[in-house]
C-alpha cells in the first residue's frame, strides 16, 4: 500500500506537516514534528532509490489520471538521487536546527519557521519528483517563496535586503521559466516531460522552440546561480539564519542543477542543444565562474560569504558536466551534486557551530577556536579537504570523474581550470583553517564580537552529531562509491541514451 504511493508520499508528507506545524504553540513541538516528518521522508526516499536502482522507472499517476493528461510523477535514478539528497540533508539539518534556531530566531517565529521549512522541503522534493513541467513550476514557486521567508528571518537587517534581492531575481527566473513552459505548451499541447521529449524532435527547427529553450535556460540559470547570474546568492547565504544557509546551500541549487539536467537531456535532448551555442556558452560561463568566484572567495572576510562564493564556483563544476554532454560528464555532475551537498552541508554546519558560540561569522573573530572547539575544527578540516578534493574524501571522487570526462573529450583547458580551481580552494579553505589553528584566542581584538574567545566551549552535541554525520559521510563516500557513482551511472544511462 505504502509502496505504491511512495513517490507521492514523499511530497505530501511535508506539505501536510506545514500547516499543522504552523499552528502549534511553541517551537519544540513544531521542531519535533518537522524532524519526524523529514526523517520519515528520508526513509521513503531511500526506499524509492532502492526501487529504481536497477535502472527501472516508476510512473505514478496523480489522482489516477493517465499521462500525458494528468500529472505524472516519473521517478528514475536521477530523481531518486536528488530526492535522497534533499530529504537526507533535511533530516540532518532539523536536529541541528533546534539549538541554532533558539539562538538566532525570536521565539514567536519558531513555529512559522518550521512551517516555512516544511514548505521549502515540499517544494524542493516536488521539483525532484514530478514529471510535469507546469507542476514543476508550482513546486518551484513553493520552494522559492518559502526560502524568501526563511532568509528574511536572519538576525541582521541586511537579511531583509538579501531576501528582497533574491525575491526579485527568483521571480524573474520563475517568470522566464513559465514563459518558456507556455511556449512549449503552445507548440506541443503537452506539459508532460516524457511526452514533450517525444514531440519536440520534429519541431527542432521551429523558432518558438528555441525561444522557449532560451527562456527556460536563463530562468533556471538564475535559480541555480550560474555565473554571472549569481548575484543574489552570496548575500542570501551570508545573512540567512545558519540553519537556512545549511539547508539551502546543500539542496536548493542542487535541485536547480537537476532541473537543468532534465531539461537539457530529457525534454529537449542533447542533439538539440548541440545545434545551439548553449553547450559552448555553458562551458565558457562555468570556466569564468570557477576561476572568478574562487578568487572572490579568497578575498572574503566573512566565512559564510566565502563559502557562498565557493558554492557559486562549485556550481560551475556541476554545469561543466552538462556542457560537456557525455555520459561520463553527466555522471560527474550527479556525483558532484551529491558530494557537494555533503561538503557544503558539513562546512556550513561547522561554521554555524562557531557562530553559535561566538556570535560572529567574520573569519578574524575565529582566532584560536581550533583549540577551544577541537571537534568543530576537525570537521572544518575534513570537510575543507573534501572541498579541495583530496583523495580519501567525497570531493576527490567528483574531481576524478569531472577531469576524466574532460580528458575523454581532450578538453585540456577545462582540465586545467578544474585543477586550478582546486588549488584556489586550498587557498580559501586554508585561510579559515589558519586562523582557527594558529592564532591565540586573544590575539585579535574582540570588540566587535563583544566577547573573548578564551572562554569559548565546544559546540553542544546537538550541533556536533549532525555535523559529524556529514563529515563521516564525506569520508565514507570517498572510499565507497557504490551509492553515488552507481546511481549516477544509472541515471546518466537514462539521461544520455544515445552514447553507448
Amino acid at each position, binding site marked *: 500500500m505504502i509502496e505504491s504511493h511512495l513517490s507521492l508520499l514523499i511530497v505530501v508528507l511535508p506539505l501536510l506537516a506545514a500547516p499543522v506545524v504552523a499552528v502549534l504553540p511553541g517551537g519544540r513541538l513544531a521542531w519535533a514534528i518537522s524532524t519526524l516528518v523529514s526523517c520519515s521522508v528520508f526513509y521513503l526516499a531511500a526506499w524509492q532509490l532502492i526501487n529504481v536502482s536497477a535502472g527501472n522507472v516508476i510512473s505514478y499517476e496523480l489522482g489516477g489520471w493517465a499521462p500525458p493528461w494528468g500529472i505524472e510523477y516519473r521517478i528514475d535514478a536521477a530523481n531518486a538521487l536528488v530526492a535522497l539528497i534533499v530529504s537526507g540533508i533535511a533530516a540532518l539539518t532539523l536536529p541541528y536546527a533546534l539549538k541554532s534556531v533558539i539562538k538566532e530566531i525570536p521565539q514567536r517565529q519558531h513555529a512559522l519557521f518550521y512551517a516555512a521549512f516544511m514548505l521549502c522541503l515540499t517544494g524542493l522534493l516536488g521539483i525532484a519528483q514530478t514529471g510535469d513541467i507546469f507542476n514543476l513550476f508550482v513546486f518551484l514557486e513553493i520552494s522559492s517563496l518559502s526560502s524568501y521567508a526563511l532568509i528574511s528571518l536572519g538576525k541582521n537587517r541586511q537579511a531583509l535586503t538579501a531576501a528582497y534581492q533574491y525575491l526579485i531575481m527568483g521571480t524573474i527566473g520563475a517568470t522566464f521559466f513559465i514563459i518558456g513552459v507556455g511556449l512549449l505548451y503552445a507548440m506541443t499541447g503537452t506539459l508532460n516531460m516524457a511526452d514533450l521529449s517525444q514531440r519536440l524532435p520534429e519541431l527542432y527547427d521551429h523558432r518558438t522552440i528555441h525561444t522557449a529553450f532560451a527562456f527556460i535556460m536563463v530562468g533556471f540559470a538564475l535559480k541555480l546561480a550560474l555565473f554571472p547570474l549569481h548575484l543574489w546568492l552570496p548575500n542570501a547565504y551570508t545573512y540567512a539564519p545558519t540553519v537556512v544557509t545549511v539547508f539551502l546551500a546543500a539542496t536548493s541549487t542542487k535541485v536547480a542543477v537537476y532541473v537543468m539536467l532534465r531539461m537539457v537531456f530529457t525534454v529537449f535532448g542533447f542533439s538539440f542543444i548541440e545545434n545551439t551555442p548553449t553547450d559552448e556558452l555553458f562551458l565558457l560561463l562555468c570556466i569564468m565562474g570557477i576561476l572568478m568566484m574562487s578568487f572572490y572567495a579568497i578575498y572574503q572576510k566573512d566565512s559564510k560569504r566565502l563559502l557562498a562564493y565557493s558554492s557559486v564556483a562549485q556550481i560551475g563544476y556541476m554545469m561543466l558536466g552538462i556542457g560537456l554532454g557525455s555520459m561520463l560528464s553527466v555522471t560527474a555532475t550527479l556525483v558532484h551534486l551529491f558530494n557537494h551537498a555533503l561538503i557544503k552541508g558539513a562546512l556550513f554546519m561547522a561554521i554555524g557551530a562557531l557562530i553559535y558560540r561566538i556570535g560572529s561569522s567574520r573569519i578574524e573573530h575565529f582566532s584560536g577556536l581550533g583549540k577551544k572547539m577541537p571537534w568543530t575544527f576537525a570537521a572544518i578540516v575534513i570537510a575543507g579537504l573534501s572541498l579541495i578534493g583530496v583523495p*580519501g574524501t567525497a570531493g576527490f*571522487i567528483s*574531481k576524478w570523474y569531472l577531469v*576524466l570526462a574532460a580528458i*575523454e573529450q581532450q578538453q585540456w583547458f577545462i*582540465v586545467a581550470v578544474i*585543477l586550478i580551481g582546486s588549488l584556489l580552494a*586550498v587557498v580559501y579553505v586554508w585561510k579559515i583553517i589558519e586562523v582557527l589553528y594558529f592564532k591565540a584566542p586573544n590575539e585579535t581584538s574582540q570588540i566587535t564580537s563583544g566577547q573573548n574567545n578564551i572562554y569559548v566551549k565546544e559546540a553542544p552535541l546537538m550541533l556536533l552529531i549532525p555535523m559529524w554525520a556529514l563529515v563521516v559521510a564525506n569520508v565514507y563516500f570517498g572510499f565507497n*562509491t557504490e551509492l553515488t557513482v552507481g546511481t549516477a551511472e544509472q541515471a546518466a544511462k537514462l539521461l544520455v541514451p544515445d552514447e553507448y
Partner: protein
Amino acid sequence: MISLASEQLIILAILLPLLAAGLIILADKRPNLRETITLITASIVAIVVTTLTMRVLAGERPAFDLFEVVPGINVGFSIEPLGMLFALVAATLWLVTSVYAIGYMRGHNEKNQTRFYAVFSIAISSALAAAFSGNMFTLFLCYEILTISTYPLVTHAGTSEARRSGRIYLGILLGTSIGFQLLAILITWSVAGTLDFKHGGILSGKLDPAYAGILYALFIFGVGKAAVMPFHKWLPAAMVAPTPVSALLHAVAVVKAGVFTILKVTIYIFGSDFITSSGASDWLVWFAALTILFASLIAMTKDNLKARLAYSTISQLSYIVLGALIAVEMSLIGASMHIVMHAFAKITLFFAAGAILVAAHKKNISDMSGLGRAMPVTFIAFTIGSLSIIGLPPFGGMWSKWYLALGTVQTEQWILLAILMSSSLLNIAYLLPISIRAFFAKPKEGPVYTEVKEAPLSMLIAMGFTALACIALFFYPDPFYNLALDAAKGR
C-alpha cells in the same frame, strides 16, 4: 620470528602507528607513559617490517586489495622489493628517531609534545602505507595524507615564520600533487585503464611514445616531495620544524616517499624499457642534473646549519631522481640504494644539528668554531655522516654513488658523470669545513667552551647508532643491495 601471514603484518605495520596516535592523545598528561607507547609501537613496527623483509628476500610477494573505490580502482597493498626497502628504512629510523626525539623535545622544552608524537605516528603510518601501496591510487592517497599530516609538524612552533613556512610547504606539495600528479594519474588511467603496479609498466604499447615525455614530466614535477627544482622551496621552508621532524621526515620519510614514488612510476608504471626506448627522460635528466649542481652551490652559501643540510638533501634527492630517469639497471640499483645510504647519513647530520641546538643553542655554522672539543661525540658522528654523504669508503654512501656513476657510464652520459663527480667535490666543500671548524678553529668568545656539555644521552645513542650504521652499510650492504637488485630486475 612472527607466525602471522604477511598480509596481516602489512595491515599491522600500517595500523599500529595509527592506534598509537590515539593512545598518545589519551596519555596526554603523562609524558612517560606517552613516550613508552611511542617506543613500544616503534619497536613492534620495526620487528614486523624486518620480518616482512626477510620474507620478501626469500621471494614472497604478498598482495591484496582492501576494497574498491570506483570500478577498477582499489585501495590495495602489495610488497615488492623497492617498497620493502623504503619501509625498512622508515621503520628502523622511526625507532631511532623516537629515542632521539624524547631527549630533544624535553631538552628543548618544546610545547604541544602530545600533538607532536601523535601526528608523527600518523605520518609514519602513511609513509609505510605508501611503501606498501599496491597501485598508483593508493600511493597517491597515502602521499596526500603524508603531506597533510606533516603540516602540524612543520608549523609546530606556531610562530608567524612557521605559519609562512607552512603555507609554502602545503602550497607547493598540494599544488604540484593536485596540479600535475593527479592529472598524470588520470591520464594514465584513461590511457591504460588500470593503475596497478606491474613490472615493465602499464603504458608501453598504449601510450604514444611522443607523449611519454610530457606524462613523465607531469609525474616528476607532480611529486613535489622529490624537490626537483623549481619545486624545491618547500624543503628549506620545512626546516622551521623541530629537528626530529627535519631528521626523520625531511631527510627520510617524506622526501624519500617522493623519490620512491618517482622510482615506482619509472619501474612499475612506465617500465624502464619504455622510458629508454621512448626517450621520455631525455630532457628531464637535465632538471635533475642541474638540481644536483645548483642545490650544492646554494648549500655552500648557507650559514644556518639546517638550511645547509636542507639544500644538501635537495641535491642528494636529485641523485635518486637522476638514477630513475636514466632508467638502466645500474642506475636503478644506485637510486634505490641511495634511498638507504642517504637516509642513514643525513639523519645522522640532522641528529647532530639538533644536539648542537639543544646543548649549545647554536644554529649558525659560523658560531660553531671550537665546539667540537666540547661535543666530541656529536661532531665525530657528524663527520662520519658527512663522509658517507660525500661517498668515500669505508662508508655506505660509496655504494650508491658507485652504481649511479656506473649507470651514467653504461649509457655513456659523460656530462652527467661529470656532474655527479663535481657534486661530490662540492659535498666536500660544504660539509667538511663544518667539522674542521668545530675541531680546529678557535671559538669566537673565549679560548674554549667550558659550559657546553654533550646533548642528553638518548640523543647520543641515536646519533651513535646511525653513524655506526653508515660504516656497517659499507661492509654489509647485502640486504639492501639484494632488494635494490630485485627491484631493478623485476623479481
